[in-house]
């Protein structure tokens, strides 16, 4: 990634993503971005705001409303020397592109024995918590994480949104870039150009000694808030932010869990056959003797995403996280 002079600015996650796109497009003329409403409107979440004006319609353009076509055209452009970054308008609207993603985006390098690489990014505003009506709130990460050949990334902070998107665009492999919608307006000081850990690395967001909360994307702030409340109640919770679902950072996650001996995975997606199940399985396989209790999960319910008035039942909240922590067999310590 091109390193510009570090500049401290206070940005929302949406602004950080916009800056990442703009900086990547300025640094590399092969970076192009396209999708539905990304031109004059700047995207329904304004992530591409101003890019057409700055770089012209060849670099940032509106497309017909057809997600399979958008991803398929991106495949061809990536085959022919470009670095496309495409926007799926919402999580559930990416499903028409599923065949392109699974059969072509994920497999092209492999089926051609490395001769055809697809350096492309599929940006997907994802997950709930914004009172969205149906088909606007899916946590679809498991579909992508289950598909070999894709990198799957979910930032939880504006700084990571900037750094991970720059890394995703620079990656020689296709990246599914999941943007937690409810965090678009979260704000923090971002040091642009400062290196952040790359794709594939998890970070410990909060140190703690009693138990480890493992979270990614929209669940990270929930885990941090739960740790804050637990601290007031005298329990020290560590928080790991995965940042990258694929590749998965076994090393950081397992080291964290070994240090506390107890863990709770927090994720918004339905729990059955999910990324959270995978985390429990892999950590248990690797850290069994370090565990003082079975790993618990706080996930979405196994139901279609509910309407806005019932959505709070679906979302893992601080209370549910703390209840799960309470269930970690402390009596047997």
């Amino acid at each position: 990634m091109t390193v510009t002079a570090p500049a401290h600015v206070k940005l929302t996650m949406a602004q950080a993503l916009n800056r990442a796109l703009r900086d990547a497009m300025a640094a590399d003329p092969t970076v192009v971005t396209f999708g539905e409403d990304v031109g004059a409107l700047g995207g329904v979440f304004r992530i591409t705001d101003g890019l057409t004006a700055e770089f012209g319609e060849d670099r940032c353009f509106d497309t017909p409303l057809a997600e399979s076509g958008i991803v398929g055209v991106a495949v061809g452009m990536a085959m022919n020397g470009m670095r496309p970054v495409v926007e799926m308008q919402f999580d559930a609207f990416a499903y028409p592109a599923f065949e392109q993603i699974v059969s072509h985006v994920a497999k092209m390098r492999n089926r051609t024995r490395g001769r055809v690489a697809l350096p492309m990014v599929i940006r997907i505003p994802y997950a709930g918590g914004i009172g969205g009506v149906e088909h606007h709130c899916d946590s679809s990460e498991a579909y992508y994480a289950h598909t070999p050949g894709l990198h799957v990334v979910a930032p939880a902070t504006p700084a990571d949104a900037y750094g991970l998107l720059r890394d995703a665009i620079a990656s020689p492999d296709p990246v599914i870039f999941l943007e937690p919608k409810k965090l678009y307006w979260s704000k923090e000081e971002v040091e642009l150009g400062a290196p952040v850990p790359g794709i594939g690395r998890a970070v410990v967001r909060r140190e703690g000694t009693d138990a480890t909360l493992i979270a990614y994307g929209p669940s990270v702030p929930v885990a941090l808030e739960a740790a804050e409340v637990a601290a007031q109640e005298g329990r020290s919770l560590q928080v790991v932010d995965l940042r990258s679902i694929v590749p998965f950072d076994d090393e950081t996650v397992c080291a964290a869990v070994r240090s506390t001996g107890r863990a709770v995975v927090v994720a918004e997606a339905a729990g059955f056959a999910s990324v959270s199940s995978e985390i429990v399985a892999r950590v248990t396989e690797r850290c069994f003797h370090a565990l003082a209790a079975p790993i618990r999960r706080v996930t979405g319910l196994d139901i279609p995403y509910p309407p806005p008035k019932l959505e709070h039942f679906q979302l893992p909240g601080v209370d549910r996280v703390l209840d799960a922590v309470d269930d970690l067999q402390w009596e047997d310590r």
Partner: protein
Amino acid sequence: MLVDPQGRGVDAPGYAAPEGAALVRAFAALVTARRLNDQAYALVRQGRLAVYPSSHGQEACQVAAAQVLADGDWLFPTYRDTVAAVGRGVDPVEALSLLKGDWHCGYDPYEHHVAPHATPLATQLPHAVGVAHAARLRGEPTVVLAMCGDGGTSEGDFHEALNFAAVLRAPVVFFVQNNEYAISVPLARQTAAPSLAHKGIGYGVPGERVDGNDAAALLAVLGAAVERARAGEGPQLVEAHTYRMQAHTNADDATRYRRDDEVAAWAERDPITRLEAHLRERALLTDARRAEISEQAERMAAHLRDGLNRDVEPDPAMLFDHVYASPTPQLTEQAALIADELDREGALR
């Protein structure tokens, strides 16, 4: 039509008949194409290929698709278009690696600008649009010829690709080989449109029909479409009406869904005998040249037999080599597991 089924030249207003040299070149390619189809079919029966979707009867389409493109142009073939890929210069042994089972795509797509064979229907068409659009953004004169069959025109990606190409004015020639059947399903069950070429109308893409067993007409129509696309006139749709003379693959039984007399009627319209009759009538083909062409086809068949009879043990390490640019820690662990299995197998031998 420029050459009728008896080989007689026909006037077609708006289209000049290709030059004699282009027709002789096409004829040589047709003979090689038929030989390739027959040889591959035989190799399936000998167990050297898992399966072969033959373009027997459709060779004029295959040959013309390859011949109308310039060096920098791209071809996007389907699984039935091995002959077209070979026509662009791909080694037939490498082109059949998918069906031999050594690896999915046996050739380097960049070497001859031939995309990997597409097995899912029509999914390669948006890729073709992307390749063309990227070239156009860079100001390169590339044209992309993207192939699909009649069945493929029912897929969503066919429509999305035509629409994107039209809106982007991408230099793509969509070439539909209407061979009457999608495995067993006849065209009447595929579409109620008056023709497949009509499907361009809804997208503002000019559509044209051509006799798919007339190599001269195919060269004229596809050649003109390629040049219009190159001149910046946007995408074109060409439907060639032809016939799949053999079953879908050797695993299919065509007698369950079509009649012998239908097949026999199409045999009368064979693209090779037709062009040969025409070349003989115009004294463009001598016996000596004809013999040379046959020998050339036999050399290709021998090369194919040699290549496919050679047993290559694919290296299991390759399983992990190209999933990502560099393997994830998880893949490194799994590669070690396979290497360990192999070590233990080796120790037992």
